[in-house]
């Protein structure tokens, strides 16, 4: 039997809306989000789980969506950077502090940074600077030198 053309139906809830599609089992979640759902805020930097640009939340926890199969997320709830702000466009405290602290330059790493740090702050609402830096290990930024990113996360913490 050839594996050619074996498709599976999945339903993934992305930012509160269900998407049901027939996909190849080998499709990565990040490609499902970008190419099937059509949300381009989740970036692909390395595709090898090193850079963190593709970070999204699956059932409320940050994961690198280039290292998750879309079929593994079947029936789960995914939040991307587009799903953070409230319906009237009000950004989260962390998004605002990225803006206020000038925590981005080109902005390529920013969606992943924010998704990773939103999840981190849920687990640790008042981290130390050292804890923030340790938690940022999986997100690379080639522009800012990280200082303002660390500042933004600290200023959004309690």
């Amino acid at each position, binding site marked *: 039997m050839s594996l050619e053309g074996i498709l599976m139906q999945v339903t993934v809830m992305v930012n509160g809306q269900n998407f049901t599609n027939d996909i190849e089992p080998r499709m990565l979640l990040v490609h499902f989000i970008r190419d099937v759902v059509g949300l381009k805020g989740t970036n692909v930097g390395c595709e*090898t789980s090193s850079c963190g640009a593709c970070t999204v939340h699956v059932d409320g926890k940050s994961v690198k969506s280039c*290292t998750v199969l879309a079929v593994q997320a079947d029936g789960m709830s995914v939040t991307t950077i587009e799903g953070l702000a409230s319906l009237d466009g009000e950004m989260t405290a962390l998004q605002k502090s990225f803006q206020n602290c000038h925590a981005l330059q080109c902005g390529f790493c920013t969606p992943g940074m924010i998704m990773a740090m939103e*999840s981190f702050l849920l687990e640790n609402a008042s981290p130390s600077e050292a804890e923030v830096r340790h938690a*940022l*290990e999986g997100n690379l930024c080639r522009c800012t030198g990280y200082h303002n990113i660390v500042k933004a996360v600290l200023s959004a913490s309690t």
Partner: protein
Amino acid sequence: MFVSLGLDKIQEVFADAAIGLGRARIFAQFELLMRSYRKAWSEVIPVKFEYYRATDVSDAIDVLASARDAKVIAGGHSLLPLMKLRFASPMTLVDIGRISSLSYILDRGEYVAIGALTSLRDIETSPILKTSVPILSYAASFVGDPSVRHRATIGGSVVHGDAAGDLPSVMLAVGATVVLQGPDGKRSVSVDDFFLGFLETNINFDEVLLEIQVPKSDAGWARSEFNRRAQDWAIVGVAVLGGKSPRVSLINMASTPIRAFACEDALVAGGSIKEAADLVSSDLDPPEDLNATSAFRSHLANVLVRRALERSL
């Protein structure tokens, strides 16, 4: 559409290079080659496979035993990278990730029982482990980053058995036992007998790792690694559990996670810490790679083991 780009194309480019075509032409060819690669592979990288989501352990075992070339996938954080590089190309993936009954950390008196699907983030933050097996939760906090630790499971880490992994060496240091289930029932294996060869562990294709039993200990311990950048894998690492007969294990000093028996024996025989550390690689043949020569690895192991013993004995 899947464009097949074989070795022949690459050979063609190298042949052109060999007969001395201009640099510009060769670069242009490489550019074309890379562009077609990206086009062909950027969307879906692993080879095609069938996907089956197991409802429980016996369901998983049934499929593993009957499907063609099937492999378990848990968090996928070791397997998917291998599949993307096409170092692994199973025809069937059996996803055990939804078997929630395999995710637990339980105090069972003498030991702590950890379900195979427990995430490394849960291990890092578990109050039970922080008190009873602190070396394990501490070591888990160095694996990848928080997002990796949300997905990566302890079972996957142990079954993968990477010599460079952080947790297999800790399992050796604490003397853990793994519990496996296959078509003929359950069996328990000491981790001392679990790591067989390069990425090869003592588990059959139709077995599922259920649980890891980690003895409690209040002995001194230390765990450290040497690497060049924060996020990197250890070039060499060490885990030590002290007590009457200390256990010393090493990361990246052989093709498997490995115990430093010569060093342990020297300590039991009353040797000093320095004498024991000097013996650490006497019965080993450390690998060479881009990060370190064999001799440099031996040097690192000596220093790391000496410091770890000073802290834990």
